[in-house]
């Protein structure tokens, strides 16, 4: 209605229209909330853009285009059309929501209500399914090589663990479609093996240490993995073969069972002989070779999505299991995630997210040292998480609230078994509960005298309370500015805040005798939480030239500092190893990224750089002082594609105490290596065939010396898709 009024008013004043730029803002007609990512284009000349995080867009209109029609399209809303001449500068375009067609809800509720999108502004990198398949790797570590500040370490036994901006792996929260999958095992780090790279639709990395909604304890950052979902009927099968006796078979079925319901199953079998032992103390030195090791991994993911009129229900079951065998030693590990969630509008309540999930891990080890005695260990952990989130929206403000409940429990049981009898060796059962409430207020404002300039300020608060007694109130602030001029967009941001990380159940249960010199009895009974103060200032610059050799250029730069204190420190004290909670570390860094998309039509270039300064390598060991990666992608219209990536890691330093309690330094020398992938996709009797040849760490410079995942690996794969 209002759009018609705008059109009418402007038609009366055609004389005011001049050639040049037009900015505008697309909002929901009912709530006034900005619509992010709406398509704004000229119908006949087919030029266009999308709206930014505040709903703003900008178009450069040439003389001929004044007779064209402007189309504003956003899934879930009625399309808006108006003559270009009717478009005022800084026009407010209100889109009417409509009842959704089947399947459209997938993207709408995902985009509108993803909690990580409501949080304080941070540096963000995103990888999409197409890039992941083009990279071909079975290891998520390879795929993430081009993302600035992200590093993956680990293996099957320790899990594939992600570090962001020189953090430790337990300081990164990983969410799979909103479910926290940080493991409760040895430490609190998430095992990314839980998700097969081929099952990922989109992977977002949010870097920085202060979040209110989903980043409790995430001093390094938050990772949000969104699995592939759509309403199309899809079938996919792929087989891969590589050295280290690798065999991989994976398949996916996406089946819409009705207009409003879709079932998706993804399964993967992966076999490998790593040929080296995974001994933690050998992680950064020569490794013991063992050709008799075999590992088998299986991923299964079944999800059922149902789309009523105004929302999306999802039920899912995800399992990841592995078996690791060598003579005299066997580990069987099973992970199971079950979740039920709803996103959307309930009768009378808008923008609600509800979720309940349970995550269990069971790890069984059977080992023989000498003779016939078996040592059995059975380790079980469970987390129950319930969440309720609601968003309140005003014309220029938003409040995202969140309430969460966590139940975590752990039981450990080990025994020895000889031919005729079992002897219990050790048993433990511990549990704790936590509740949290958080809210992020944000307000948008703009300067009427300067079109194209707007900003959004954020304030976040969070309260955590543990059943075991600890309570913390943390807060964060942030601001993001957006300035648009012709084909350029500048978006500087700033954030500052405090974050708290609670000791994992294992730490809370076992690290008890703490040495604390500030107390009279010098022994603190319990571990205290770790705290982090961090600030981040950065800018993202984007250019979409009207003409040029590339379609889009994006540049980002950010400077950050992070102070962590209350870190647990194990130090020889007398003849024993004592626990101190005095550790304080300051990490400073600079992160930069530069990319050109569709350079000379066929190429994409991506460069990433990170410079780090860690004050206490005793607490943060082996963080490369510098890392750099460069990637060149080629994609032809005939289905050929290729990717070449070179990467470099500078000196990594660690401090440690030797047996005589002397502080020592160990430095790993820099290395570089490269990955090359070529592939071809072509149609054949109604299906798409995909052949790919890939090589990772081709120069083998890191070899055995560095990390488990950094060995030369060559793979060939064949896939079919329907």
């Amino acid at each position, binding site marked *: 209605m209002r759009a018609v009024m705008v059109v009418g008013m402007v038609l009366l004043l055609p004389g005011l229209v001049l050639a040049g730029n037009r900015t505008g803002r697309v909002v929901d007609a009912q709530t006034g909330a900005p619509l992010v990512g709406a398509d704004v284009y000229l119908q006949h000349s087919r030029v266009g853009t999308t709206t930014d995080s505040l709903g703003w867009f900008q178009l450069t209109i040439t003389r001929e285009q004044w007779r064209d029609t402007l189309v504003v399209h956003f899934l879930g809303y009625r399309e808006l059309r108006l003559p270009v001449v009717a478009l005022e500068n800084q026009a407010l375009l209100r889109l009417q929501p409509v009842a959704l067609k089947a399947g459209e809800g997938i993207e709408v509720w995902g985009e509108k209500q993803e909690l990580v999108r409501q949080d304080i502004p941070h540096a963000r990198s995103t990888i999409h399914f197409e890039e992941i398949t083009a990279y071909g790797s079975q290891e998520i570590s390879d795929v993430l090589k081009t993302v600035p500040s992200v590093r993956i370490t680990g293996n099957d*036994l320790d899990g594939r663990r992600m570090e962001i901006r020189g953090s430790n792996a337990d300081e990164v929260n990983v969410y799979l479609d909103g479910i926290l999958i940080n493991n409760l095992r*040895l430490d609190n780090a998430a095992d990314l093996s839980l998700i097969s790279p081929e099952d990922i639709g989109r992977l977002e990395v949010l870097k920085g240490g202060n979040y209110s909604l989903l980043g409790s304890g995430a001093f390094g950052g938050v990772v949000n993995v969104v699995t592939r979902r759509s309403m199309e009927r899809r079938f996919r099968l792929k087989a891969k073969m590589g050295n280290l006796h690798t065999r991989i078979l994976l398949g996916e079925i996406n089946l819409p069972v009705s207009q409003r319901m879709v079932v998706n199953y993804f399964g993967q079998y992966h076999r490998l002989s790593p040929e080296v*032992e*995974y*001994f*933690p*103390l*050998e992680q950064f030195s020569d490794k*013991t070779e063992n050709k008799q090791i075999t590992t088998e991994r299986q991923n299964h993911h079944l999800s059922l999505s149902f789309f009523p009129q105004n929302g999306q229900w999802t039920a899912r079951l995800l399992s990841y299991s592995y078996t690791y065998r*060598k003579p*005299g*030693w066997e580990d069987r590990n099973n992970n199971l995630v079950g979740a039920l969630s709803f996103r959307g509008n309930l009768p009378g309540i808008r923008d609600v997210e509800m979720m309940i999930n349970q995550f269990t891990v069971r790890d069984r*080890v059977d*080992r023989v*040292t*000498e003779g016939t*005695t078996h*040592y059995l260990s059975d380790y079980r952990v469970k987390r*129950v998480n319930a969440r309720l989130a609601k968003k309140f929206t005003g014309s220029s403000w938003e409040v995202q609230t969140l309430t969460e409940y966590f*139940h975590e*429990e752990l039981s*450990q049981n*080990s025994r*020895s078994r000889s031919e005729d009898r079992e002897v219990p*060796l*050790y*048993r*433990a*059962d*511990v*549990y*704790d*509960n936590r509740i949290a409430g958080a809210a992020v207020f944000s307000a948008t404002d703009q300067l009427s005298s300067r079109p194209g300039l707007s900003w959004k300020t954020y304030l976040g608060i969070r309260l955590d309370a*543990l*059943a*075991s007694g600890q309570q913390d109130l943390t807060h964060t602030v942030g601001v993001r500015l957006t300035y648009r001029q012709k084909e350029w967009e500048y978006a500087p941001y700033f954030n500052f805040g405090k974050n708290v990380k609670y000791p994992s*159940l294992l730490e*809370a*249960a*076992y690290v*008890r005798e703490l040495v604390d010199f500030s107390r009279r009895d010098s022994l603190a009974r*319990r571990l205290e939480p770790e705290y982090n103060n961090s600030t981040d200032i950065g800018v993202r610059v984007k250019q979409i030239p009207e003409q040029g050799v590339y379609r889009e250029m994006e540049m980002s730069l950010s400077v950050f500092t992070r102070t962590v204190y209350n870190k647990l420190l194990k130090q020889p004290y007398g003849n024993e*190893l004592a626990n101190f909670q005095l550790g304080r570390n300051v990490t400073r860094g600079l992160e930069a990224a530069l990319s050109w998309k569709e350079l000379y039509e066929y190429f994409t270039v991506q460069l990433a750089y990170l410079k780090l300064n860690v004050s206490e390598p005793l607490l943060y060991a082996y963080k490369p002082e510098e890392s750099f990666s460069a990637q060149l992608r080629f994609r032809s219209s005939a289905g050929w594609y290729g990717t070449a990536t070179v990467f470099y890691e500078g000196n990594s330093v660690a401090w440690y105490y030797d*047996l005589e309690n002397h502080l020592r330094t160990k430095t790993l020398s820099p290395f570089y290596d490269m990955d090359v992938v070529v592939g071809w996709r072509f149609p054949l009797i109604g299906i798409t065939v995909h052949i790919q040849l890939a090589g990772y760490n081709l120069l083998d410079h890191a070899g055995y010396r560095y990390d488990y995942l950094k060995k030369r690996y060559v793979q060939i794969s064949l896939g079919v898709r329907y």
Partner: protein
Amino acid sequence: MNAMLRMLLLFLLFFLTSCEKYVGYNLDAEPLPVTVRISGSVRDFYTNQPLEGVRVRFGDYQTSTDQSGFYQLDYPYGTDEERNKPVELLVILKKYLPFHESVILPPITYIRDFRLVRGAPIIQKVVLPPFTTNSGRQIYVCQAQVKDYQGVVDIQLVEALVYYQFPGNPHLSKYRKELTLVYELSDTTAYYEGIFPPFLSDGSTIYRRYEIYAVNRSGLADTLVALRSPTQPDTFLFTPVLDDTIPEIVP
């Protein structure tokens, strides 16, 4: 509807209060065993005597045996050991063949006894009595009984170092000479003999103190420092097998 809601609430309340596990906490666990206690004894392989001062080394950690040959060590048991990483084990005592092995340690306790093989020769008996030859010259005969468990053939060298003294001068001269094998008592034990003059060319006369040194092919050696009785001459171990090449003047 209202009744149902009430039922639901009641059920929830019941659930929450009955399951302390879902509202309370328990963080009391018995301390996790973080070391494995390694203990045992070390004895001589041939004599079964306990050996004292034996260095027993597991990985980076070591200890030594007491008088009764016992040792005990608390070895930090980490993830590497849990994953069956072999630990290098080394048992060392001077004059004994070192024992080396890779072991996979079990959790909690590990008991291991060792019997070390004496590698070095053993100088069992030694004498240095005076003897008058048929030609009337007085000499000293050094006789030694040396044992080597690896066999007499393994003994490479047995030599004696005899001290000579100037009257009224504290300075001692030395005369070193290899002893020759004269008789095999068994596969492992043999007699050795050598002849020494009563005085050297520089005028010094034989002193009470002398040393015997024996070494075998493994490079392991035994040394014995002996003193002649000033009053009572030593008795011969066996009838001397004299050699005519007695040097008149010693360099």
